[in-house]
């Protein structure tokens, strides 16, 4: 049986800064995972990647990453530890990465259980 499709976002690294970025609904790049465009079907995921591929000089290595949406329409959450760490910063250095600017609960931005 085919695996059920998991919602996806496109992530990459910004060419100039190397920062982790996500493709948003306007087809531009944001540093906020919760503002990323979410593809709910394989076709929509392909379309998102195609949009990313038109901007090869802004980002490096765009790829599809799984996300979870606890409720329909709610902001996407990373499902894998790797994506959580990319989103927030090194788990050993809360003073570095995007997490340094976030006031919210460290557990609240993750839908996986690997941490």
């Amino acid at each position, binding site marked *: 049986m085919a695996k059920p499709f998991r919602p996806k976002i496109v992530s990459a690294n910004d*060419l100039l800064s*190397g920062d982790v970025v996500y493709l948003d609904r306007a087809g531009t790049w944001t540093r906020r995972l919760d503002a990323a465009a979410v593809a709910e079907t394989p076709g929509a995921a392909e379309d998102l990647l195609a949009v990313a591929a038109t901007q090869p000089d802004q980002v490096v290595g765009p790829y599809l990453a799984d996300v979870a949406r606890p409720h329909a329409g709610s902001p996407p959450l990373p499902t894998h*530890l790797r994506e959580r760490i990319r989103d927030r910063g090194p788990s050993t250095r809360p003073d570095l990465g995007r997490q340094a600017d976030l006031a919210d609960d460290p557990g609240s931005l993750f839908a996986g259980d690997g941490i």
Partner: protein
Amino acid sequence: MYRYDEFDADFVRDRVARFRSQVDRRISGALTEDEFKPLRLQNGVYLQLHAYMLRVAVPYGTLNSAQMRQLAMIAERWDKGYGHFTTRQNIQFNWPTLKDIPDILDALADVGMHCIQTSGNCIRNITADHFAGAADDEIDDPRPTAELLRQWSTDHPEFAYLPRKFKIAITGSPNDRAVTKAHDIGLRMVRNDAGEPGYEVIVGGGLGRTPMVGKVIRDFLPKGHLLPYVEAILRVYNLLGRRDNKYKARIKILVHEAGLEDIRAQVEADFAHQMAAEGGPMVAPDADEVARIAGYFTPPAWDDLPEEDAGYMAARAADPVFRAWTDVNLAAHRRPGYAIATISLKPIGAAPGDASAEQMRVIADLAETYGHDEIRVSHEQNVVLPHVRKRDLPAVHRRLREAGLATANVGLISDIIACPGMDYCALATARSIPIAQDIAQHFSDPDYARTIGEMKIKISGCINACGHHHVAHIGILGLDRAGRENYQITLGGDHTETLAIGERAGPGFDADQVVPAIERLVDAYLALRDGPEETFLMALRRLGIAPFKVALYKDGEHDRAA
């Protein structure tokens, strides 16, 4: 230490200028990422999880104070205030931006440093015994050889596109601190029966997904024959090494598949061909050049001192913290009245190998004031002051304490090698640093750590084994099991001249089960050992792995689903 001549300096500046133009063209869109990636890798620029990473070569782990200060400046000005010393004796910066990297490379060139050949399928930074030129067990100083190899291998046109990366390590001591048997080529400086200096040449060692112990391809190679012989090995590898499968492309696989005898015959044939050339082999350096290089490594102007110093002894007697540090972090120097001091970059709870800019400056100051301006980076991710007068040790220790650098744990259970793992590395399958931190915290009692004695724990965040877990007494490999971190434990590895690959103990452990697992192993060892003189590794060799496996998995305390 070696100082660049005009040729070296021009070469490095030229490479920086070229890379600056390549970066400009990438930013303007004139170069695609596919075109740019090999160029950035040739200059040590990786893209990791959060940012670019710049790997700076520290040739054979040797730095002076000016270089260390420049690294501190770079960390502060263009990074986030720290750097990470690696098992390749290099330093990595985790957060540079692409447009700043040419400026960083220029700043490195100002102090005779660069990032060339720290990546890609080429001959990488030559590594060496971090106690070179200081150790009392040394037969010969390996650094002139390492420098000769550095010059030979830098931009070597024939070996710029090897089947895979190629690592050479060298030791001048019978006690191998350079892990020579786990390198593509390992060199051990030896003397023959006539007392002439030469090398035992080891080939085909390596860690990674297929760990292998290197094999002796030549018992004794006269010193002057080194470059033609190494060139012959590289040539045979370049020709026959597999390019069809990245995972089978290292020379260890070639030696394994073709057999040592076959490879030896081909290497010797190429070597003989070179030796027979009119005027001798092209790559053999002339005596003047060898002497010129060796001249940079003459010992510093050591004082004539008695072996013991009254002030040092008094400080030891008066201050138990200082005494503990000297007991653990010092090694015997070849010169009376001197010691080799290892500065642990493993403060309890810190990321192994990380140093802040401020700490780098303290190390630089200490090297300049008390250490003949010499600093070494060890593959164990510590920093070494190789020549310190014993009478200066109390002052050195005081300053280290103020800087949070006086942890007395070298060689003990909390002196853990850990690769960056999933907190930084794009290839990782699990995190390494938090596991190291948890173990160090758990065994933070210095008396208990000393009771346990010599213990090498090494952690890798993926099968690539940058954390040398295969050659650890207790090795830990982080894997991803259905999106969850899982840690495999190996037992009985050894990174020394008796190099051994650890044996996988059994099913892996969840992250929060690693510390209890290590504790059970330690408890078993303490219960089973013959006495304090019998180290963990000795006990494991005497008893075999079985009783330790029983302890590890007693009560089914592992993740059964593994």
